[in-house]
């Protein structure tokens, strides 16, 4: 429950630190077909605890499809997705999205999916729903237990908003936020579900270089603070090269290269896939 609080770095944190390096997510030869066409085929990738991994590739390479498979939006046609939490490993391929979220995977969306008509604070409060300690009766009759829990939900939500630099906008309607703030709010909302693995789908899309650089720092600090492992899709190569420890390169639904940013940068297949874009890489 007290997870998002920074002081949570007690014994649990050191324990997690000890376990750094163990495999958190293991995608094994996953394929997804859409009516005869395979959007991704035979994709395998691993994420170890505490890692920050990038998933890059040209447009239409299947990156978002990988995210959708990992979060249960649709089930894989073949292959297994294994996720480990609290020493328990299970196949989450094809599990319902809300169960995958409860298992510890949070995500953001490429085409921002906030609850646009609700307040910024409500967006985060909704995401706290999994660990609410009161039942339906308390909810309907607003018992003292309810009030106590709600105060805590608001406190924790405000804390998350503070971390994402949104505290002063808590009362604003989400749709009125700037593009960058909306992306921040999506991250805050995902964090509220207390994930151990965070999937960020183009977090810097639409941001200017200054904002991107700020976001880069924020992502690294979030990883420290919440003991997160992060997988991110990004087109902004400066961001990817700066913060990712490892990269997977996807093209036409297939992993064509993986390794450290330097290795990937020099990989002939990657240069070929990006064609004229290698200057950016």
């Amino acid at each position, binding site marked *: 429950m007290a997870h998002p609080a920074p002081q949570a770095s007690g014994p649990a944190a050191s324990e997690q630190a000890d376990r750094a390096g163990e495999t958190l997510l293991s995608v094994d030869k996953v394929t997804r077909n859409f009516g005869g066409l395979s959007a991704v085929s035979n994709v395998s990738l691993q994420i170890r605890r505490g890692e920050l991994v990038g998933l890059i590739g040209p447009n239409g390479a299947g990156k*978002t499809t990988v995210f959708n498979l990992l979060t249960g*939006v*649709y089930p894989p046609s073949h292959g297994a997705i294994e996720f480990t939490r609290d020493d328990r490993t299970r196949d989450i391929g094809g599990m319902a999205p809300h169960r995958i979220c409860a298992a510890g995977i949070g995500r953001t*969306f490429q085409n921002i999916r906030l609850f646009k008509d609700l307040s910024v604070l409500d967006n985060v409060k909704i995401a706290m729903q999994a660990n609410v300690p009161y039942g339906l009766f308390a909810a309907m009759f607003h018992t003292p237990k309810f009030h106590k829990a709600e105060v805590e939900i608001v406190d924790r939500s405000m804390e998350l908003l503070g971390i994402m630099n949104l505290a002063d906008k808590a009362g604003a309607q989400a749709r009125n936020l700037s593009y960058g703030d909306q992306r921040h709010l999506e991250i805050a909302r995902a964090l509220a579900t207390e994930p151990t693995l965070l999937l960020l789908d183009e977090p810097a899309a639409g941001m200017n270089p200054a904002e991107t650089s700020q976001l880069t720092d924020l992502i690294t600090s979030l990883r420290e603070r919440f003991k997160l492992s992060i997988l991110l899709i990004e087109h902004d190569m400066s961001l990817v090269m700066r913060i990712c420890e490892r990269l997977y390169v996807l093209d036409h639904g297939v992993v064509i290269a993986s390794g450290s940013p330097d290795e990937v940068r020099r990989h002939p297949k990657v240069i070929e896939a990006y064609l004229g874009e290698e200057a950016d890489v």
Partner: protein
Amino acid sequence: MGEFAQQVINGLSLGSIYALIALGYTMVYGIIQLINFAHGDVYMVGAYVGYFSMTTLRLGFFESLLIAMVICMVLGVVIERVAYKPLRNSTRIAVLITAIGVSLLLEYTMMFFVGAAVRSYPPLPDYLTGSFQVGGVTVGNQQVLIIGVSLLLMAILQLIVRRTRVGRAMRAVSQDADAARLMGINVDNTISFTFALGSALAGAAGVLVGVYYNSINPLMGILPGLKAFVAAVFGGIGLIPGALIGGFFIGGVETFVSAAGQSLYKDAVVFGILIAILIIKPTGLLGRNVKEKV
């Protein structure tokens, strides 16, 4: 066996009417994903137009059928342009509520002008009222007329949708309206044309129902409209062959439930089928599953 064959004939004539109405539902749904609640009432208007054309204007059956189709066609297009078009970018609920509003408006405006009382349909000319025996089964000329007219109209519809330019435009818009627009198709006109086609079929169905049940009233569109919708869902909404299969199926079910002496429950059975389909295979008999894009 004779009894069974008799019920099949009865089911076919009722089913062909449902199929005619279901076609309008399914075409409109296919093209703008709207359950056009007012469709059942367009068909009611068709029945009244046919009635007045045969009584007040003293026109023959086929002329009246044609007039009903033309007037309903115009009505359908007007409804689309006035009530639905402004809501092209609204939520589905908003459009659906509007459709319900249009439906009630047609019903009660009609009631305001012609009164709520049931009217009996004018008698048909002699050559359409007789009956004949085929292997111990009585077939009414009227039934032949209903089935014949329905099948003819369906064949024409199929020709329009498959073989003409505007039919191709309809199919394109129902696949992807934005892409169709980019290819130079006038999407608004295509949608209007779809309403025109569907409403004309409903108008014809209205006259045929008047003949079949021999009575009409301003609220007559509600139940057959809903059942035709069930038929469209059963076959797979958005699919023209689905509407045909569904129409005949629902017509058959209803006929057999009545024949089994349970006519009080025939409507409940149809709605039960609807809920069952929605649970077992919401895309209908011929439908395919499509998942929302993330």
